[in-house]
């Protein structure tokens, strides 16, 4: 019901454009560093682990496709979503929880305003819009991380790394990753806002709401990942 009302408020004007932009900056731009770092080291470790395995079967030339497909189809969307949940989702739940505790949400309601439209919709919308961009950043930086290890460290040719990648990666793989990111964006916005909005009173209530938001969203991301993978691929 909360999600339904939120989606209805998202689709009906007026949209709080300024608030949406502010939240895109908060969820998207401010997560960029952590996403870049996670992406780099994920790409590097996939290459580091994958190269010897591929060499055993004489297919080290396929390192590029292996790194890129792992990232684009699976690791990019999932790890990005988990990192955003930890960094931004927890903050969203805590902020809304404190707004509930300090009666700021009641104040909005008593001004004749719809709190969902002011507090929840900008976060959900920003989360849906930011996740695909962050996922693409994660994928690109991760592929470059794989390049660093595979080509610079382990001696694979750069042409082979990128050439084989372009042979194997299809549009369907990229779109699948984007669909996952969109679904995870909705999920993070929804779960974290819901938990904050229904936070119990006091510091303990906000603390519990924040913990539940992160745990529930993280678990749901992995569950949702399975089903989206089943449908998309």
């Amino acid at each position, binding site marked *: 019901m909360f999600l339904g009302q939120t989606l209805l408020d998202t689709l009906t004007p007026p949209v709080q454009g300024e608030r949406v932009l502010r939240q895109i900056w908060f969820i998207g731009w401010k997560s960029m560093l952590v996403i870049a770092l996670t992406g780099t080291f994920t790409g590097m470790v996939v290459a580091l682990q994958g190269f010897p395995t591929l060499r055993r079967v004489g297919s080290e030339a396929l390192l590029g496709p292996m790194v890129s497909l792992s990232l684009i189809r699976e690791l990019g969307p999932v790890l990005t979503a988990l990192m955003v949940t930890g960094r931004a989702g927890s903050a969203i739940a805590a902020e809304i929880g404190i707004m509930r505790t*300090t*009666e*700021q949400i*009641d*104040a909005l*309601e*008593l*001004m*004749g*305003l719809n709190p969902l439209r002011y507090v929840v919709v900008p976060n959900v919308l920003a989360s849906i819009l930011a996740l695909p961009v962050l996922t693409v950043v994660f994928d690109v930086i991760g592929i470059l991380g794989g390049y660093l290890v595979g080509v610079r460290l382990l001696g694979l040719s750069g042409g082979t790394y990128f050439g084989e990648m372009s042979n194997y990666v299809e549009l369907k793989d990229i779109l699948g990753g984007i669909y996952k990111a969109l679904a995870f964006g909705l999920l993070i916005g929804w779960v974290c806002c819901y938990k904050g909005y229904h936070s119990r009173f006091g510091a303990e209530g906000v603390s519990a709401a924040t913990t539940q938001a992160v745990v529930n969203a993280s678990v749901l991301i992995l569950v949702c990942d399975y089903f989206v993978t089943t449908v998309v691929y």
Partner: protein
Amino acid sequence: MIRVENLWKSFGNQEVLRGVSFEVQAGEFVALIGSSGGGKSLLLKLLVGLLKPDRGRIWVAGKDVAALSRRELESLRSRIGFVFQGGALFDSMTVYNNVAFPLREKTSLGEKDIYRKVMRELELVGLRDAARKYPDQLSGGMLKRVALARTLVRDPEIVLFDEPTTGLDPVVSRAVLDLFGLVHQRLQLTGILVSHEIPRIFEIVQEVAMLHEGRIIAVEPPDRLCASPDPVVQEFVNGKSAGKNCHLEGVAGLI
């Protein structure tokens, strides 16, 4: 202006309100007193439709609150101001933006008119110089005054004050209550003030309603309430126990 009839509200097994009835005339300023946790703040929230009663009816400005649609309730709420215990200011906004917020969102006024109106209200509460500050840079008394400015900027007909002096020292508390009294006098608002500031609030209200064990047991002008023979009223108003204080006797034994 406000009429409450046989209002019941419980949470689980705990019955907080057990048949509350009272009336507030237009332009009247009424204090609602009673022991802590007795349901005074709850009663205010029921009046503005933030919570629904289990039984009973509430009429505000001639409208049956429980029967209103969401849109009708929004329209009614635009005529009511509510000053929260903690102020409920938006901490991400400056004082100016907090006060301007309802005007920007609910009226078609231009920025110039909004500026004029906001500064007038801040002047009224003596905080013109604090316009650019954020709530976390304000003292408790200043927060309450900004909350009052944000409430008054919408020109409400009815204002509900939920323990607005809690946590303030006696001097600031007196200044805030004086300000409420002055505002009521000048604007002729209908108001309900929940407060424990006895007897200070008796100087600014016309009637006092006392909530005890879930019911309104007295609605009287302050002087008549003070002269009431009811021991419960006397105990609360004068802070004197009608009988032996068993709890304190127990504590004394421990010291």
